[in-house]
């Protein structure tokens, strides 16, 4: 489901689990990312704030 919502960042492995593109979420995709996290039926996704280095 998340791969359909956010194909720019998420692909699926052979078993349907998400493979997340590395790196921070681009600002314009943040609302979609939050939506994908909320809609995940198995709570497998997490959106965290990046540490400032």
């Amino acid at each position, binding site marked *: 489901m998340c791969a359909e919502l956010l194909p720019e960042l998420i692909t699926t*492995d052979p*078993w349907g689990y998400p493979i997340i593109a590395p790196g921070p979420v681009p600002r314009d995709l943040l609302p979609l990312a939050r939506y994908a996290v909320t809609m995940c039926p198995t709570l*497998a996704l997490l959106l965290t704030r990046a540490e400032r280095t």
Partner: protein
Amino acid sequence: MSAAGAVSAGPAGSALPPRGLPRLIPADGPLRLADHVERYGPVPFRDRRGHGGRFGAAGLIGQVERAGLTGRGGACFPAGRKLRSVAENGRRAGPLRGQSGAVVVANGAESEPTSAKDRLLLTFAPHLVLDGIALAAEAVGATRAYLCLHESSDKLVFDLGAAIVERDRVGQNRVPVQMVPVPGGYVAGQETSLVNQINGKAPKPAFVPPRPFQKGAHGRPTLVQNVETLAHIALIARFGADWFRHLGPVPGPAVPSAPGSGAMAGSALVTLSGAVRMPGVYEIALGMPVGELIRRAGGPSEQPQAILAGGYFGGWLPYARAHDVPVSDPTLRAVGAALGPGVLILLPESACGLAETAWIASYLASQSAGQCGPCLNGLPALAEMLAQLAFGRPDGSALGGTERLLALVTRRGACHLPDGTAAFVTSALTAFAGDLRRHASYGPCPRARRRPVLPAPGHAWGAKP
């Protein structure tokens, strides 16, 4: 084991530091409490009359940091740093419903089938481990401790229980020590698995963060330390960081290391098994070359082919390659293996490295906690691929498929099982590349049919998680 290097009692009940080896395993058998105190001296708690504040403000944690002791449970994480983190988090967390700061968890579960050192240490030197627990509890401000043991070792559970009671009677424990029987299973002894069990949950790894040093048993900052690490702490507390680090000349190539780095300092217990004349647990000075350790164990019992260093999350090395490598985590990692919980297994020429790897990949797949899709699905698929490479006649696509699976299972689980399995398999594809080519041309070798060298308790081909 010779008696050389045993500790002798100095004047006024103080003990002289052990010279040479062994340090942890007494040469003359398990020590009861009275003999233990006579040999090593009383536990140098902070407030003990005559021994108080031996290390001043820097305290035990400072000494352990200076000693550069790294964890002996497999991750080789700096022990002093962990102690300091838990102590700081405990202070910050403050008292909670009357309980202050932190919790100490001693990991003696030894879930790695190829390791036997923790059982041996707990049998021969239980009071060194219990001293370590008490000292660590004092250092991090803990008010309770747990000692985790494999549930199958009835005698060990009984004897450790008796040792704890003996110490309680004379106030040697500092904090109550509760024993936790840990079920069998490869991931049951993982640090967050233990914390889960203590918290009344299933013996499965937890998602991190938070890690136990932040929030663990009963929600408190928790120090999880292997029992051997705690035994070293018990000796560092008595004899100091310089004593710990000084263990004779370190042969082999020089490894640049920062002051205080302990990856090659001190002694370590190593379980040596497979095709050696005298398999067993050896206490060595870190940095001893692999070949010298094998010589000490009577040499190979058959023509040697390869070494598995680090256990099932470690790596394979062709024997000629491994022979001169100093035994330590950084030097073994530099050649594609690891120290792990101090495990070295010698594979003879009569075995097939790919078959052994396929067998253990199958075992590890069956050990998945089943919490993470990539592990639950990926490891059995990886095991199936390995079986094709080992027992079939693999074509080019089989190897490509294996490599794709290896990428799919790494860094996608809550614990290290998929990553460790991937590292183990990756090293096999390198070390046994010759066998891969031969299998592709001629089919599986006859050596693949022999009984496995590597142990997989309770496992049968096709077993599911």
